[in-house]
């Protein structure tokens, strides 16, 4: 009996956590190179709209996903140009990006409010979905969730097992060393910010293509900011990001379940849960920091020698 209640909730946790996971991985990639991107919320909005509009116009959900990712990367490139190119303040640039992205998506998206699209549907993976417990939770989802299982592995391999990743981490820890080694510091940070934006765009695209199947103004609802907080919770490691994203997915799914069941608790108070949890998780991660410090040069714009 409890399994019948619990398994769908866990499956919903994975689904709800997926957009947050994409965005968190994007932010980890960006921050590992030393750039703080507070534009996640705006990038996700634009990604969600681009994906939705493309899927609506072409009828191909896959094209929509690519468009969402591409527009996310494009908007992140603005951040890269302002922060890396023009050495502007990273915090303010990110905030501006969120204001811009949210405005842009809400402005351009107004005519589309309320039309639903098929987007991505649930397709069980044969054989794997027969595994007890794991099957129903992880392998009866939509294709974008399956893709998101690969994303942390991809980010981990890119960061830890490639030369590019090593250089990128150096750009986040010791910019002087990067310049001393004759590498292009700006190019490294640029690539990290743009690739990170691509992943954030994927997160936004997931929301409109596979989660709600429609466009609405408050679609992202702070998930971008939750992702920024989760990066700290994850200590900048892709693996822990999975844990954090599903934890939040769980809380959000639980809250929607509770609302659907019709409790006496007012929905406004229930909706506060993820935001309060974000503060709690952030505080918890900040208190016990055992050698899990942020990249040393995070948020610092490097002044190259003349």
């Amino acid at each position, binding site marked *: 009996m409890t399994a019948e209640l619990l398994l769908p909730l866990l499956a919903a946790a994975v689904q709800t956590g997926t957009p947050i996971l994409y965005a968190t991985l994007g932010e980890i990639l960006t921050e590992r190179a030393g750039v703080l991107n507070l534009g996640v919320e705006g990038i996700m909005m634009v990604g969600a709209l681009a994906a939705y509009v493309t899927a609506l116009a072409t009828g191909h959900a896959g094209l929509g996903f690519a468009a969402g990712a591409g527009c996310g990367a494009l908007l992140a490139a603005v951040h890269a140009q*302002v922060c890396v190119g023009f050495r502007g303040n990273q915090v303010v640039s990110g905030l501006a990006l969120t204001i811009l992205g949210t*405005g842009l998506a*809400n402005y351009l998206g107004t005519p589309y409010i309320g039309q639903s699209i098929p987007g991505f549907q649930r397709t069980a993976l044969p054989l794997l979905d027969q595994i007890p417990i794991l099957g129903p939770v992880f392998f009866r989802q939509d294709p974008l969730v399956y893709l998101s299982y690969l994303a942390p592995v991809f980010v981990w391999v890119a960061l830890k097992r490639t030369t590019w990743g090593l250089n990128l981490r150096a750009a986040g820890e010791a910019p002087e060393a990067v310049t001393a080694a004759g590498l292009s510091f700006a190019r490294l940070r640029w690539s990290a910010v743009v690739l990170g934006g691509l992943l954030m765009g994927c997160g936004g695209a997931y929301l409109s293509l596979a989660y709600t199947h429609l466009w609405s103004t408050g679609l992202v609802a702070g998930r971008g900011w939750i992702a920024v907080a989760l990066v700290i919770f994850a200590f900048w490691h892709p693996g822990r990001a999975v844990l954090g994203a599903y934890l939040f997915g769980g809380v959000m799914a639980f809250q929607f379940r509770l609302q659907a069941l019709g409790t006496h608790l007012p929905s406004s108070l229930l909706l506060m849960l993820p935001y309060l949890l*974000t503060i709690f998780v952030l505080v918890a991660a900040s208190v016990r920091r055992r050698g899990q410090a942020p990249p040393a040069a995070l948020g610092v714009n490097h002044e190259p020698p003349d």
Partner: protein
Amino acid sequence: MNPISVHKRTDPLTWPAALILGLAIVLSLSVSALLLHWQDKPARDALVILFQGAFGSWHALEDCTIKAVPIFLCSLGVAVAFRLQVWNIGAEGQFAMGAIGATWVVLQFPQWPAFLLLPAMMAAAALGGGFCGLIPALLKVRLRANEIIVSLMLNYVCILFLEYLVYGPWKDPVSFGFPMTMVFPPAAIVGAIGSSRLNWGLVLALACAVGFWIFFRFSRLGYELKVCGESPRVAGYARLPYHGLVIAVMVTGGALAGWAGFLEVSATLNRLQPSIMVGYGYTAIVVAWLARLSPASIAAASLLLAGLRVGVENLQLEMQVPAAFGGIMEGVLLLTVLAGGFFVRYRVRWRGFS
């Protein structure tokens, strides 16, 4: 060989600031025009409507000033925090808590006379907003939690709390189910100045501006704040109480944003309802960064961005352009000013290809 050489200037230039702001405004208008054109709306007419709506008439200027007051109050606190390298993104939530605090007083003591009620509302608004600023400040100095995220999450929490109140316990029984409190009694309303549509909130804002100026010019705490902001290392050597300053700045900023919320419920809407949240707190961030620390420039930037809002409202009325349009203009404005700062701090020379 890179054809462009970049050198850091020993003394940053001061004169291009106005030029950069001008360029930023032009760029943000161009982007807007392009977007309008793309949606088959006559871009030139739209810009004229925008400008006329914002600054084209006495009526428009009044509107502008009315909107500039809450933006200005929110920006003061945010600007000081920015100067301290503390990122207070929570003005929106502090504004909401101020509105809630003021409304609580009205609902508790509706029969009080104005000379008791209004000061009590102001005190409650300052307490509400200040409390909302205190949380991220305390978590930052005690537990090193990132104040950007805490203050931003509190925005969502406070707005949801406001919704809970007006949909639930505070809902006016005769509002036909609309989420709003009862209309405030006349004693709880900040009145208009003379026969204009401006209210006495403008005077409150001016008083705050003067207080702000005096504080930074003459008080010891103001001086310490400036030192801390300009050089944290010097502040460390001088043993300035950085933690105390952070808390003081965040609480004061919260109280100021709370007053903005108080003015909105009392003077503008005369009741509490969800439509009070129009994003002044986020606009305040743009203003604070554009204007830095002088109250005069904060006032000027508040008027500019208030004008943008009024203009966009006019555009919405006349051409059905969504209100979100304002966000695009604000975002482009801020990004351009940020990018433009590069040319103030660096000397860029064309070396040519060799």
